[in-house]
């Protein structure tokens, strides 16, 4: 009898939950904190008000909106996630830091589908870490290009770094390019020089590995190009368009400076993609990062509030709101429908951004450490006196990356082959540090993998050694003729390495 009652009760509860969910269950009033940039505070307030009036779920937000620049949001969230904003805008480079602090709620399955369907494909990639999406793309315009003063720089010179430097030096003007910030200086490596730096992050914002070939012949070419500007008297490390007022003829900056630049230079304002530099007779176009601004939601203890906040984020990053921001502040939308709008297509500043994007690297999640490592490249290269010195800059850079990955000498790496292991984007690697590792083996053609111990972690970085073919660990047991581990069936395994032999236990 008791059992019967329990079953009935459970059935009733399940039924009630289903009906609860199918009804418009988000209705209610929510108090939220919102952080957006100074420029869109009033606009966002109006947009939230409109959301309250128009949404069909009966959601009402009582929002406290605070000014918070996209660059500062992360450092403020990290200080105290609990007291931080429920919904906030941030620049893409802060993503891993926010993950580390667990300041971003994962998007649910449907929400992730929504992002894939409605936003710029690159921007959708940029919010994805380890297969999970963490935010809604707000803008797709966070790149940099060149503003210049037409009264100093002839239009025909804008393609050549050497000519630009000459023009500036002749006129006694500055060439402002914030190379002390790797966000800008990496451009030299990304363009025609052809380097990449692609990080693989996990859900905790830790770097699992990186494919980075700055320390190579290509990187040396890039550095030589950068050195030309570093050594000239006209280089000024700034990205503020207001530098035009203090004797700059060129400023490398982004869309956010456009209105100020127009006010200062008026008809003399020129906008162009970045120039090329010449090394041994070949012209290399300077590349850039192409980044995004994102809108994130703080993890919530209440799923209903989380769902309601998702609705708001979808609304705020949707077509209508994106176009309003474009009209008032010139922000380039990430929303596909908004991108197709006439006003956006005909925007000359955005045209320069997209022209430069052809040479750019789409900015994905990057290890927070990389910014610190890369920011010193320019300073170090400026002090270098010869080619050996420049090479040393790149060696130092690589050493610091290795250190940041904390690859200790005795550690091993497990490389799962189920997605193929010749490509860093595909292979699944697991860092094998304390002797044991649990991993999920998916159903696939080849459910195997290798444990590798590179001869020297100093030159192999996480994933990179997969492609450079590191030495395999010998002696994995008689039933592993290929020195590979093969799993009999998909599932969750614990792999233990005691220094000489491997034990595999299915959980």
């Amino acid at each position, binding site marked *: 009898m008791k059992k019967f009652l329990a079953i009935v009760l459970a059935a009733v509860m399940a039924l009630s939950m289903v009906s609860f969910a199918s009804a418009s269950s988000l209705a209610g009033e929510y108090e939220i904190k919102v952080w957006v*940039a100074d*420029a869109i505070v009033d606009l966002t307030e109006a947009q939230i008000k409109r959301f309250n009036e128009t949404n069909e779920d009966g959601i009402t937000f009582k929002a406290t909106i605070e*000014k918070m*620049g996209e660059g500062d949001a992360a450092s403020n969230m990290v*200080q*105290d996630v609990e007291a931080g904003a429920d919904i906030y805008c941030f620049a893409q480079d802060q993503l891993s830091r926010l993950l580390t602090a667990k300041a971003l709620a994962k998007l649910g399955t449907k929400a992730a589908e929504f992002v894939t369907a409605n936003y710029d494909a690159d921007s959708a990639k940029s919010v994805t870490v380890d297969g999970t999406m963490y935010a809604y793309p707000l803008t797709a315009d966070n790149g940099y290009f060149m503003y210049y003063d037409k009264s100093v720089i002839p239009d025909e010179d804008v393609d050549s770094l050497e000519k630009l430097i000459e023009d500036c030096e002749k006129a006694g003007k500055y060439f402002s390019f914030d190379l002390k910030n790797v966000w800008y200086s990496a451009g030299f490596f990304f363009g025609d020089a052809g380097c990449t730096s692609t990080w693989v992050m996990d859900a905790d914002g830790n770097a699992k590995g990186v494919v980075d070939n700055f320390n190579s012949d290509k990187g040396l070419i890039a550095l030589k190009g950068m050195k030309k500007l570093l050594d000239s008297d006209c280089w000024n490390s700034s990205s503020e368009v207001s530098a035009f*007022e203090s004797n700059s003829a060129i400023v490398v900056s982004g869309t*956010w400076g456009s209105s*100020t630049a127009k006010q200062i230079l008026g008809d003399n304002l020129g906008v162009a993609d970045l120039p090329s530099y010449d090394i041994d007779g070949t012209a290399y176009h300077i590349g850039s990062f192409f980044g995004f601004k994102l809108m994130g939601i703080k993890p919530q203890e209440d799923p209903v509030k989380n769902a309601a906040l998702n609705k708001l984020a979808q609304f705020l990053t949707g077509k209508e709101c994106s176009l309003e921001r474009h009209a008032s502040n010139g922000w380039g939308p990430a929303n596909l429908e908004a991108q197709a709008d006439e006003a956006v297509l005909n925007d000359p500043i955005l045209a320069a951004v997209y022209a430069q994007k052809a040479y750019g690297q789409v900015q994905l999640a990057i290890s927070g450490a990389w910014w610190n490592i890369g920011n010193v490249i320019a300073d170090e290269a400026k002090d270098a006196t010869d080619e050996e010195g420049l090479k040393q800059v790149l060696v130092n850079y690589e050493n610091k990356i290795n250190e940041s990955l904390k690859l200790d000498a005795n550690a091993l790496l497990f490389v799962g082959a189920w997605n193929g292991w010749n490509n860093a984007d595909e292979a699944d690697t697991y860092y094998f540090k304390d002797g044991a590792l649990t991993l999920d083996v998916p159903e696939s053609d080849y459910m195997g993998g290798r444990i590798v111990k590179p001869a020297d972690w100093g030159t192999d970085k996480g994933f990179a050694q997969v492609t450079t073919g590191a030495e395999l660990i010998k002696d994995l047991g008689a039933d592993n003729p290929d020195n590979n581990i093969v799993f009999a069936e998909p599932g969750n395994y614990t792999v233990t390495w005691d220094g000489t032999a491997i034990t595999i236990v299915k959980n």
Partner: protein
Amino acid sequence: MSESSMKRHMGLRASRTLGNTLIYILLITISAIWLIPFFCIVLQSFRVESTWQVGYVMPKVWGLDNYRKLFSSDFTRWYTNTFIISVFTALFQTVIVLCMSYTLSRFRFKMRKPLMRFMLILGFFPGMLTMIILYRVLKDLGLTQANAVPGLILVYIASSGMGYYVSKGFFDTIPKSLDEAARVDGATRFQVLKKIILPLSKPIVIYTVLTAFMGPWGDYVFARYISFGASAGMNVAVGLYNWLTPDQINNNYTMFCAGGVLVAIPVTLLFLFLQKYYVEGVTGGAVKG
């Protein structure tokens, strides 16, 4: 007066005049160097033609636009906050510092030396270290972000007892025989403090009030940490500093300068009128670290 001594006298006077002229030149140069930044800031605050940083000093168009905008922004809020913090801090901090320094100067009790040594050693720790924990403590009390004003007051005054050195030095210079005479006449310790010491302590009281009042106007790091992300709880330093972040500097730089001028006014005025006491307080006290 003999001829030789006459000559010597004139020579002395000539060298003194020369010396004084040199000193005047020096003082004028120093004053110029000292004032240039302030003039620049004041001039920027009257610039109308642009709102960002520029490479020239003289505004091309003069006007009060920046001040007008200032009063319609959150600045008034921040200014009020800071003023409230300053007044309360000045009040309580003075009481606390005087209690502390008077006791340590006048009473001889067993724990006196160890106490002074302990506080000296406490001061060797960089105070910034405690910022994170103070934030959490204040958060548990509900005194952060929008409610940061009472929180800041609490923290400023709570540790102010450690800054007793200068005023203790001042009390040390008041002869003890005064107290003893009063004690012999049957006055309690409290009456001695009220009737005899306090009336003599005007300079040090004013000095303490002045320094305590000035402190909160310039505190950025700690105040930002406590009031983070909530404009309603910010002081002027935090609020104005936010105008220098990349997304705001081009729109708000001249307003920042105007805000700076308004912040400087009350403190400068106080200093102008109370300078005499400041000098008396600091020399009576600072000589004894």
